[in-house]
């Protein structure tokens, strides 16, 4: 990871393990995830559906639904304080103030029966001791900051009167209104059309610099990751299988799975694309995982050791990447 010299991480996650009690048995949705995050830095989390990206992030806000979910072990240090096991009241003080999260569905993520102004002021007043008037002024300012035209007018609008992109901007305004040290964005643009996607992402990058926040960006769009993230964490079946600076990851992936993900991005320039190279096979069921490396069932390089032992995360020779693989690419 690219750790800035002399700076302390705002967020340190160590060996996080989260399990869900389901009808068919206990599912380990997050299995030993560790990472650090510094102010001003963006960490991208990528991986196929169901690999534990959202659950990892929910844990950062203490929002893992309990039951059925449970943080089994590990620690989450936010600004130097372990927040795992904090009481409900303390956790509420942290949410929205020290760490904020924006979700995938802007159409339904806001409360439909209150104006956006009301909802913004509500958050501001909860976490600061602003008066009604100050909160209002700050809310208008935040709407302007996220690029909403005529913000004072928009304050009185209900969510259904705004477009999807506008609503997601309102969500961002809300998330930033108390100046959090960490912003978690879980597929913030998936539900938006392409042009709006680009605008919203651009706005987020701008704001991150302005507010000097640490950002965690979950997305399926590897192009966005390449443009916005310093570091990338690739998850597979609840585990981190590769963690590397974005620049290196995209040019020289170490894990065969990462390479497969990258290869599955359609490249328009490549002429006469016969078929999209996809990773063969299916993601294994979390209830019946392979014995060894979880990717071994789909990996073309897997040998006996891969099927018997779980590789741990280590630095791949000659790169900045940490990779959980016995036979990383380029090391053979």
């Amino acid at each position, binding site marked *: 990871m690219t750790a800035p010299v002399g700076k302390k991480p705002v967020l340190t996650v160590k060996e996080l393990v989260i399990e869900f009690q389901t009808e068919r048995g206990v599912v380990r949705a997050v299995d030993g995830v560790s990472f650090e995050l510094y102010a001003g830095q963006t960490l991208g989390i990528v991986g196929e559906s169901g690999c534990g990206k959202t659950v990892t992030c929910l844990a950062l*806000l203490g*929002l893992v639904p309990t*039951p059925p979910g449970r943080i089994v072990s590990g620690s989450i240090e936010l600004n130097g304080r372990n927040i795992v096991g904090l009481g409900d*009241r303390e*956790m*509420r*003080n*942290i*949410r*929205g*103030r020290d760490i*904020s*999260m924006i*979700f995938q*569905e802007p159409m*339904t*993520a*806001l*409360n*439909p*029966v*209150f104006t956006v102004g009301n909802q913004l002021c*509500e*958050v501001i007043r*909860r*976490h600061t001791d602003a008066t009604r008037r100050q909160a209002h002024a700050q809310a208008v300012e935040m709407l302007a900051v996220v690029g909403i035209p005529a913000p004072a007018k928009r304050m009185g609008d*209900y969510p*259904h009167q705004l477009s999807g992109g506008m609503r997601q901007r309102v*969500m961002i305004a*809300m998330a930033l209104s108390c100046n959090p040290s960490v912003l978690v964005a879980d597929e913030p643009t998936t539900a938006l059309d392409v042009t709006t996607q680009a605008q919203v992402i651009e706005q987020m990058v701008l704001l991150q610099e302005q507010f000097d926040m640490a950002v965690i960006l979950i997305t399926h769009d590897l192009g966005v990751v390449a443009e916005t993230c310093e570091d990338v964490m690739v998850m597979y079946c609840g585990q981190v299988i590769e963690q590397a600076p974005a620049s290196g990851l995209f040019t020289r992936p170490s894990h065969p799975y990462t390479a497969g993900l990258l290869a599955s991005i359609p490249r328009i320039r490549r002429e006469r694309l016969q078929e999209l190279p996809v990773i063969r096979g299916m993601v294994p069921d979390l209830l019946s995982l392979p014995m060894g490396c979880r990717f071994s069932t789909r990996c073309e390089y897997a040998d006996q050791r891969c099927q018997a032992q779980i590789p741990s995360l280590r630095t791949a020779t000659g790169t900045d990447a940490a990779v959980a693989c016995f036979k990383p690419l380029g090391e053979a």
Partner: protein
Amino acid sequence: MEILQFALRKIIGGIPLILGVTFISFLLMVYYGPDKTYELLGKNPTAEQIESVRAELGYDQPFLQRYVTYLREIVTLDFGNSFSSGERVNSILKRTMPISLAVITPGFILGNLLGLVLALVAAYHRSGWIDKAIMGFSVVGMSISFLIVVIAFQLIFCSSYGLNWFPSRGWDVYSLSDYLRFVTVPTMATIFVALGYNTRFYRAVIVEEMGRDHVRTARAFGTPPAQLLYRSVLKNSLIPIITRIMFSIPLVVISGSLIIETYFGIPGVGKVTYDAITQGDQPILKAVVGLTAVLFVLTLLITDILYRVVDPRVSLK
């Protein structure tokens, strides 16, 4: 202004409903209801006597003409005199309606309010032991019949076998303390019977709302439980809640008061209606049916306006 226009449109739209309900009810009343003629006559009446009584009751006129008369009565709100007592129907209603309202209202309001509170608590502690206990009691409450509840409550609260705190029957109200004395047991019985149904219904509505994205957003921004339940959950489930409450009003007013008033010997509209049915007192039945239909249309109207008040997405169209 918009509201007034809307109300007018709705009322006009409700006229066919009123016509339909009253027409069918009147048809049934005339052809299948009890005939008052022979009750009023002595033994062995002559043909002329029968004729004159039938003319007096209006039975001799053709059906459609009688129906038009009925409609005129609804519009002018004047239903003539009772066949049984000869008292003016309007004055009977004026005397008994306040009693019925006084008997039903507390139980109706408390039953819904308590149901809502229990449902919120249960939904918030979903699948915990509090939830299970509340839902368990609801099922028990739902499965006991009203008659048993009334008898049990009368035994417990109104008889010398029990606490003997309240009168078991009657309505002898001249002051607030009288009122409380007579209204308490009927109210408790209605609450007991309605609570299970209300709690289950409201819990289902609230649980659904709690799973919505905007509730998760509110959580993610540190909203405390009371505010979460009020601002995010309750405010957004008001449409089904209002629908249930409003649509149960006509039902509760008629059938609720009918049952309670007969069991507790309270001289309200329910009792009057019950007597009118058994005695074939058409003017009273016509009034009750007509007013219920009107009440129903008004309820629909108010419900629609309330939707608009609680949900900015609803427009008055």
